[in-house]
């Protein structure tokens, strides 16, 4: 899978929360891009992370594995990790793989930001 099939943009939602907008394909080949986005967000002071899957086109099991790696890194830094914008199909994949037990899924960005703010995050 070509890395160029994936695009990840970071934006600050508030002083402590970064939203990573994921577009295209998420596979094991996207690991470098996702980890780079995560490091940039952390370097910019993000204490909470929200993944926006509204632009997700395709994800395979390698992509799910990569999200687990991201989760471990975020947990190590006490950064709550949440997601929104998942289609019904991918919501079910999160539930099937039980990733939803560690990455809280919200219906939209507003509720994701409110939810992660309640979860806290190191400051």
């Amino acid at each position, binding site marked *: 899978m070509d890395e160029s099939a994936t695009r990840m943009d970071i934006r600050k939602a508030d002083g402590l929360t970064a939203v990573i907008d994921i577009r295209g394909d998420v596979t*094991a080949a996207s690991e470098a891009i996702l980890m780079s986005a995560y490091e940039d967000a952390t370097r910019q002071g993000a204490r909470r992370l929200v993944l926006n899957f*509204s632009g*997700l*086109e*395709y*994800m*395979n*099991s*390698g992509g799910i*594995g990569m999200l*687990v*790696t991201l*989760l*471990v890194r975020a*947990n*190590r830094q006490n950064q709550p990790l949440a997601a*929104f*914008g*998942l*289609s*019904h*199909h*991918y*919501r*079910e*994949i999160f*539930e*099937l*793989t*039980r*990733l939803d*037990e*560690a990455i809280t899924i919200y*219906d*939209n960005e507003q509720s994701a930001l409110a939810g992660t703010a309640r979860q806290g995050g190191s400051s």
Partner: protein
Amino acid sequence: MTEHPGPDGIPPAGQAERDPPAGRRMAAGDADAPLTAPLPRNAGSWAAKVDRLTVADGGSRGSNVAGRRLTGPVQGFGKMWKKTYWIEVSPNISARTVIAEWKEHFGEFWPEGNRFKGPLTSLSPGDVALLDVSVGGGVRLSTGVFVLYADDESFTLMTPQGHMFAGWITFSAERADYADDPDASPHAATIAQAQLLMRSNDPLYELAMSLGGHRKEDQFWIRTMTALATYLGALPTTVHSRTVCIDRKRQWGNARHVWQNSMVRSMPHSIAAAFGRRRPSRK
């Protein structure tokens, strides 16, 4: 509202207990989620959602699988590891052929003494397969796996509660071109790979893994990959491996998983089998 079809748009066969139709499970608050998004191009490669596994004709071996939930690396107990094993097969064999053969003959590549009872044809999303793994000292672990994902170039197995580890194994194949690689002689190859992302499921397994379990697992996959390559006509070649500890932290909150430990639950069968083998036949 769209619903997730099974493989190739057909509802998967009933190897696993299905959830009620998706529409009935959606809460009112889900209204903002993009439920009407078109299904992705690989939707049929994923298994349909299941809560608990069911086993058809599993007998006593299936008792460690039936009714169990799936466990991913998030649910395990021990350190999280990513283990990758790969081998070159003939460049004349496509990645799709490697995966097709691997799915169809999966258990045949396992080392002697281990048994894989999967579907008679190829592995498909949603299938549940039973397995007996020799863990040494005459003890057999009876457990199973669930086919989480399968497409033409990869497939992934996920483990149930009580299995040695919580996580998944992804088998894949791809074309590699070493034309510009300074560390390799210039050539093209097809690479077959098995990658585990796992935590041991409970403290007993974690102990067993640290007392030689990791080495035994390495041997298991090296022998499996070698058998696959040999089947595909490769000359004897090296299995490469890389092990990375993703998370050194143990999840003590999951230590109670020990009550579901399939190795402990398999003991009576192992002991009975051992006595059965030693009992002299009556004339």
